């Protein structure tokens, strides 16, 4: 559903609008967070906290901005906050091993190709990770990605380009 309609509905009736919001964005936000946290329990907690924060702070949402970007930004911050709090010794950027360290039993390690792609993503600097995920999985525009990652559309494009090259090289090296 178009984000403008969601915002309109939230303005008309916050509780009803929020129920619609949950149904529309629940899975998308969960998966965005899960790609960051890896761990399923962390993803669940971060997703819950994200939506609660969205509900409580909707009155402060600047309607001239993108609602989707605002939502993703809160989700991203919450995911990173939980990782920093629960796994303070794990560096989640430039670290292909981060995925293995954060993994729980809810990962299909037998799917080697998919695991390696996630490792390749975690080997990137944080902004490139986020940019890659938001573009590749969520298919967001560079304008929205820039809002979420606190950069410019030009930087987002550059991060996307660099991320693709690094991932390609990581996978190529693995399979060569």
């Amino acid at each position: 559903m178009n984000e403008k309609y969601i915002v309109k509905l939230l303005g008309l009736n916050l509780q009803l609008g929020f129920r619609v919001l949950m149904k529309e964005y629940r899975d998308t936000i969960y998966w965005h967070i899960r790609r960051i946290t890896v761990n399923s329990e962390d993803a669940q907690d971060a997703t819950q906290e994200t939506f609660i924060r969205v509900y409580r702070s909707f009155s402060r949402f600047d309607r001239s901005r993108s609602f989707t970007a605002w939502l993703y930004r809160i989700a991203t911050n919450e995911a990173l906050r939980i990782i920093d709090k629960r796994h303070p010794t794990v560096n989640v950027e430039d670290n292909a091993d981060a995925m293995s360290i954060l993994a729980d039993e809810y990962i299909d390690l037998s799917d080697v190709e998919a695991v390696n792609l996630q490792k390749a993503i975690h080997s990137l600097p944080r902004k490139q990770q986020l940019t890659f995920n938001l573009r590749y999985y969520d298919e967001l525009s560079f304008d929205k990605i820039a809002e979420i990652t606190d950069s410019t559309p030009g930087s987002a494009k550059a991060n996307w380009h660099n991320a693709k090259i690094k991932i390609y090289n990581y996978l190529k090296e693995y399979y060569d």
Partner: protein
Amino acid sequence: MTKITNIMGIGKRMPYKVPKGTLDEIENNVLKATGCDRKPSRKLRTAGFTIAVAASLTLVAIFAWHRQDVSADTLADVQQAFSNLDNADQTFLSEIYYEDTFMNVNY
């Protein structure tokens, strides 16, 4: 990007699995924590196919009012989103529309 995905045919596939019931649990916990699990007190009990269809058309009308050039795809999205709501919310939306003079005047 094509090169990357074609090498291994991964596409958007991920190795992550979701524990059974997690997504519903998330939704229920959030709705409970925010108090949004409570339905509107004015909800009508006249739920059913007729109401659902009428209310669905109402929601589409609301959004068409909001944006006259709304596309067929968008309307389909709205209808799909609407159909995901339960009867109480569908009825509530219907009430909002019919009781809101401002919205009716502008449509």
